[in-house]
């Protein structure tokens, strides 16, 4: 195997890891955001949910930016075409991300009730849209985009096809469960119990959606081809299913932290399941496979990939180290009763 090919494969794996970590970390922020209107009954409870994600959401979102940046640096052709082909969907995603960020930053800056209500609503709606759009985008990547020699033959409505939508719903369901467990772990008192109860109910919905998604994946995509060709890969989806089941078992046994760990693993494994099925495509073409974007026809040069590998090997562990420190620093539970309203956010 040539050096270039090895680097291309390394970057495909890193690309998958960046997305998986992003979904795992921002997933609970998005889930908490979507659930906030149903979960929090009083101002202090709303404040508690916002505080639970406050110190970490910003750092979590950077995984998305890094996933985008890594796509640009390692697979520039994919980056170029993906962002122009999925133009409207990704613009909506971008605006939702902007609104989500400012809704957290702005809500606590003015005391008026109406002001807070505006930004809480914005937080919930934008969180939902981000989860949905990410799912729709990945669903469409899994099934392939209509592209050939003359370019792209689709628009926003083509993206909103049944498989794209079911993928969107899957992401919403995954993040809802994930966020509910996170809120349950990070808060105390009534709101924590309510959150864990919601997580249990949402889990049932998630399993139903997951079954439909898997069946539809068999029909609409070629993701399973790789698993037929290399059955040992099936350990990834099996781990995903096991983690999903463990979530419920831990919830039943009131082991919220373990349920959260299971939910983290589930999200990572679901992502890997999709991406392993995609290999070596980055985005397949649904009409002419000669025009599929693969890691081989859309990557950077050997020199650039080498430089990026060195940078990633040195600095990603450093990032992970200080992120762990910050998570430990802000690990205590937030009790709505003790909040004074003077906190940041």
């Amino acid at each position, binding site marked *: 195997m040539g050096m270039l090919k090895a680097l291309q494969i390394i970057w495909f794996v890193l690309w998958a890891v960046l997305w998986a970590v992003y979904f795992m970390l921002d997933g609970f922020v998005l889930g908490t955001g979507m659930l906030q209107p149903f979960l929090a009954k009083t101002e202090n409870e709303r404040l508690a949910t916002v505080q639970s994600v406050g110190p970490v959401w*910003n750092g979590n979102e950077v995984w998305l*930016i890094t996933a985008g940046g890594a796509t640009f640096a*390692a697979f*520039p052709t994919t980056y170029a*075409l993906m962002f122009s082909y999925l133009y409207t969907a990704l613009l909506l995603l971008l605006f939702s991300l902007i609104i989500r960020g400012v809704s957290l930053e702005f809500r606590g800056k003015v005391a008026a009730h109406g002001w807070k209500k505006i930004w809480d609503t914005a937080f919930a709606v934008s969180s939902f849209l981000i989860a949905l759009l990410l799912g729709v985008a990945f669903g469409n990547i899994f099934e392939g985009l209509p592209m050939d020699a003359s370019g792209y033959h689709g628009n926003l409505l083509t993206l909103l096809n049944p498989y794209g939508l079911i993928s969107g719903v899957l992401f919403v369901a995954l993040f809802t469960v994930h966020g509910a467990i996170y809120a349950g772990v990070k808060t105390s008192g009534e709101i924590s119990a309510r959150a864990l109860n919601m997580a249990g109910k949402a889990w049932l919905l998630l399993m139903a959606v997951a079954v439909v998604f898997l069946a539809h994946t068999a029909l609409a995509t070629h993701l399973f081809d790789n698993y037929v060709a290399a059955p040992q890969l099936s350990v990834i989806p099996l781990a995903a299913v096991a983690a999903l089941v463990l979530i419920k078992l831990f919830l039943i046994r009131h082991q919220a932290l373990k349920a959260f760990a299971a939910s983290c693993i589930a999200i990572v494994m679901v992502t890997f399941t999709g991406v392993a099925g995609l290999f070596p495509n980055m985005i397949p073409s649904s009409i002419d496979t000669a025009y599929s974007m693969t890691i081989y*026809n859309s990557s950077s*040069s050997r020199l*650039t990939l080498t430089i990026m590998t060195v*940078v990633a090997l040195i600095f990603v562990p450093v990032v992970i180290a200080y992120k762990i420190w910050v998570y430990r620093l802000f690990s205590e539970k937030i009790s709505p009763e003790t909040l004074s309203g*003077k906190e940041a956010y």
Partner: protein
Amino acid sequence: MNWAEYSKYVGDIFGAPLAIEATLAFFLESVFIGVWVFGWGKVSDRVHAWSITIVAFATNLSALWILLANGWMQNPVGAALVDVVGNPLITRRAEMTEFAAVVGNPYGWIKFFHTLFSGYVLAAFFVTGVAAWHLLKKNEIDFFKRSFNLAALFGLGAGIVVLATGDFHGVEIAKVQPSKLAALEAVWETQRGAGLSLIVVPDSANERNSIELLTIPKLTSLLSYHDPNAEVKGLKDIPRELRPPVGITFYSFRLMVMLGMLMVLLSLIAVWVSKRDRLVSNPFFLKTMVASIALPYIVVQLGWTVAEVGRQPWIVYGLLKTSDAVSRSISTAQVATSFVAFTVVYALLGIVDVYLLAKYAKQGPVVPVKEV
């Protein structure tokens, strides 16, 4: 999104600094801002102070990688054009040949210092402006005198660096971007010992300046090449289709330099008045400083206009034209819609932001709540 052909063509070089920025700087910034905002009373004062120091360091580091990327668009070093064979998605692109050249690009480094220190000037004017407002209202006079003094000194120092790096920047432009230099100075004829006229009205249609008054001999050559007799290439020797829009570039540059010098002058007066402790007795000057908060915002926009419009018609100077860099799969209507959407969203957020900044600036110093 709008620049698919650009990303395909230069992604091999341009993507790396952006990805490195995200990994090195953006993570640091976003994680430690959380420690700063939520860390009151949770971490020791020392760690808390370090967290905001790290954020500041990381934003500066961000600026470096972004401006090295932009510097490469201005002066594409360390790259070679390569034909891509047997790939249906791409036929030709620029590939990195020397990473050290991209990272060591003098254009990028000068741009970095020039831009960074203009940012410092902006911050200084913001603080002096807010302090001046409070001094006018006689709020917390001691506190705001100290804020004013510190920011004024900082602004003066940073302003001098901006002027100095601006000079280096001009020399670098003369070296690598003759068409930008010619447009900045509205020089039409190639000439040795080019002068600089204080009042100029360029006339692109007729390839001349309709007004040129108060000419100082040899000054353009001196400023651009540090040699009074150096040859300056005129716009007429650059094909029409390769010239930047002269009017916008010229006026933005002139106004940037004039307002920049005005700001250094204001900083100088500010330091002087502050040192002599005459701030409170000088309401006119304080009002001037409040109004001057807007100045650096205008100037940095002008500077960026010079940098980007002056590079036209190139998106990567000499390598790729802006018109060849756009996405082929996107309609004009889509671009127009997204442009309007961005404008509306940013305008609304800008209004909220200015409102909040003003609200908190007027509130004055608040001792942070330690125990939550």
